[in-house]
């Protein structure tokens, strides 16, 4: 059965200025290391070897710090954009704790609705210098905690499950452990503040403890009403000490409810932490489910954790793709081999000869086509001679057959009177259109008549003409 059990999260607990490293023992119970005094650790007088080896191997998952190391505040905030909220909180904390620059790296937030329906931003942050120093030491030892929480947050989660109307109004919870009592105060379902009361040693009569607890509770109730501007509507108690809920109720003159089921849960589950004090009332699996209770971590670590699933998915999908594509590549490579061999053989002498013959054939066809389209210079001259009227004769002609087949001519036109030019040239144009069918239709405007070169003699007017047109 144990084989299939999920390994339990290693926990670091800071209590009474001492640091404990908790890990699951062989029989499933919480195994706690010898407490290490916090101040000696911070002074660097502690060797990392004091930390149990299994703890070091598994890494520091959850760190439980005293409630007073953590501050909280709530206020209305318009925007719900994470980047905006974080920038605002970072700036606000920086201003509030100028002596603690690291405070900007350790905060969390969420929105909640008040009983009046107002949306509030709840922010929580670490505010203790000792924490930042401890964090640096743990980072140096490669044991930076992934999630940091407090007993108050653990109880908050626990009570939300146990108490039906926990989200409404003010609630007080008393956690009594032999000579100590932890008082937690919640408002509208969220942690507000806590107190740690040291009770007198019990010799024979526990009434001294009861009196002290009743007095301190009343003081705290007054403090709560000042802080929350509301009254506590219920007091709950989990007693692992000498003071009973019924006795306290009688002393306070108001109802104190014993939180039921805690002890049963603890006795049924063998993985209790076994530490009398702060974490009594919890078992190891409670602290393994870090997503259930409120916690925070270094902003960079948080970012790393946020991206981790994406990166893991990226690696997994990438590897699967790599595997599939490699298999496909192998298949293609094997498949292409015979095709390539055939293609290489296909380029043999016989095929080369065939390709050469076809290429020559194509070249021959191109040549036949080109030559077939080339106009005959002789026929062009004959057609031009035929098109010439009696009064037009050619002085120079240029027949071009490639690249742009065309005919350029210069000649002379003769007329007995100026009005006859038009008639002669029109006849010439008509003849050209007739003998050079396929060219663009020619008109009188295509003839360049040089009037300055016109001469008169022998009863005739003669003018020089020039024209150019493309051959079909």
């Amino acid at each position, binding site marked *: 059965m144990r084989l299939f059990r999920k390994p339990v999260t290693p926990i670091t607990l800071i209590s009474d200025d001492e640091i404990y490293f908790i890990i699951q023992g062989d029989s499933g119970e919480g195994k706690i290391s010898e407490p290490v005094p916090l101040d000696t650790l911070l002074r660097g007088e502690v060797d990392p070897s004091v930390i149990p080896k299994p703890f070091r191997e598994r890494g520091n998952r959850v760190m439980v710090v005293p409630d007073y190391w953590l501050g909280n505040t709530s206020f209305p905030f318009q925007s719900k954009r994470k980047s905006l909220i974080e920038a605002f909180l970072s700036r606000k904390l920086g201003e509030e704790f100028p002596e603690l620059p690291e405070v900007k790296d350790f905060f969390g937030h969420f929105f909640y609705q008040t009983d009046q329906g107002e949306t509030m931003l709840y922010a929580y942050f670490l505010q203790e210098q000792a924490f930042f120093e401890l964090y640096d030491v743990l980072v140096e030892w490669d044991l930076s905690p992934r999630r940091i929480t407090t007993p108050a947050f653990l109880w908050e989660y626990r009570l939300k499950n146990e108490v039906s109307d926990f989200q409404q109004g003010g609630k007080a919870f008393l956690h009594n452990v032999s000579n100590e009592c932890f008082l937690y105060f919640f408002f509208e379902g969220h942690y507000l503040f806590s107190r740690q009361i040291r009770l007198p040693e019990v010799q024979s009569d526990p009434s001294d403890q009861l009196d002290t607890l009743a007095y301190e509770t009343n003081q705290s109730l007054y403090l709560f009403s000042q802080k929350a501007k509301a009254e506590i509507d219920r007091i709950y108690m989990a007693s692992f000490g000498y003071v009973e809920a019924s006795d306290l109720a009688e002393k306070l003159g108001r109802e104190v409810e014993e939180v039921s089921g805690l002890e049963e849960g603890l006795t049924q589950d063998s993985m209790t932490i076994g530490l009398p004090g702060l974490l009594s009332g919890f078992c190891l699996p409670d602290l393994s489910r870090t997503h259930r209770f409120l916690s925070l971590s270094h902003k960079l670590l948080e970012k790393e954790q946020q991206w981790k699933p994406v990166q893991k998915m990226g690696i997994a999908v990438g590897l699967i793709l790599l595997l599939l594509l490699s298999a496909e590549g192998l298949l293609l490579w094997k498949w292409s081999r015979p095709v390539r061999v055939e293609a290489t053989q*296909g380029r043999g002498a016989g095929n080369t000869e065939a390709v050469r013959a076809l290429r*020559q054939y194509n070249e021959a*066809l191109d040549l036949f086509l080109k030559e077939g389209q080339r106009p005959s210079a002789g*026929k062009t001259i004959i057609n031009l001679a035929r098109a010439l009227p009696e009064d037009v004769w050619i002085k120079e002609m240029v027949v071009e*057959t490639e690249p742009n087949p065309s005919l350029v001519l210069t000649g002379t036109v003769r007329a007995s009177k100026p009005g006859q030019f038009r008639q002669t040239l029109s006849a010439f144009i008509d003849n050209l259109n007739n003998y050079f069918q396929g060219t663009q239709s020619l008109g009188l405007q295509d003839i360049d008549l040089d009037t300055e070169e016109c001469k008169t003699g022998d009863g005739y007017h003669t003018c020089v003409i020039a024209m150019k047109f493309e051959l079909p």
Partner: protein
Amino acid sequence: MKDRINKRWIVVGLIWAVALSIDYWNIGEMYRITEARERKIFLKMDEQFLKAHSQEISDSLREREAFFHSAEALNLGLLTVENELSALAAEYELTGVKVQSQPDQADDGTIPVSLSCEGSLRKMVECLEALRRDYAYVPVTKVTIVIEDRGAPAKSEISLNYRYKIVGPETQT
């Protein structure tokens, strides 16, 4: 901490880069296979075409030969064609014949050649027709004819393109 995030991104990037490279290679390989297959099909089609039209092809190739002058050397070829052109012009009673080739302007197996002559327009036209009919390897590209006066002989400048093919002595036709 930042290093760890970056390292993981590098791993992701590397895996995807390799995967995409393989994909790129695979696509290329697919194209190569398709191309090889197509080439094979085309070769088969070429062979079939050659078999079916072998007579037609060989006739065309033979006809094509007429469009090129086979010569053992370019100078010899030019000398031959210059003589042939001079002889042709003389045959059509054209005078002042001058044949000039421009080997320095040779381009892709062709050399420009010019033929200048003088004579009657009719004979000139006949000469041009004979050139077209019997000398396919010297196609006329341009003819410039100048007739200075009515009834005067025509002076012509004929530009030709000499197409040649250098062959061994045994293959010359």
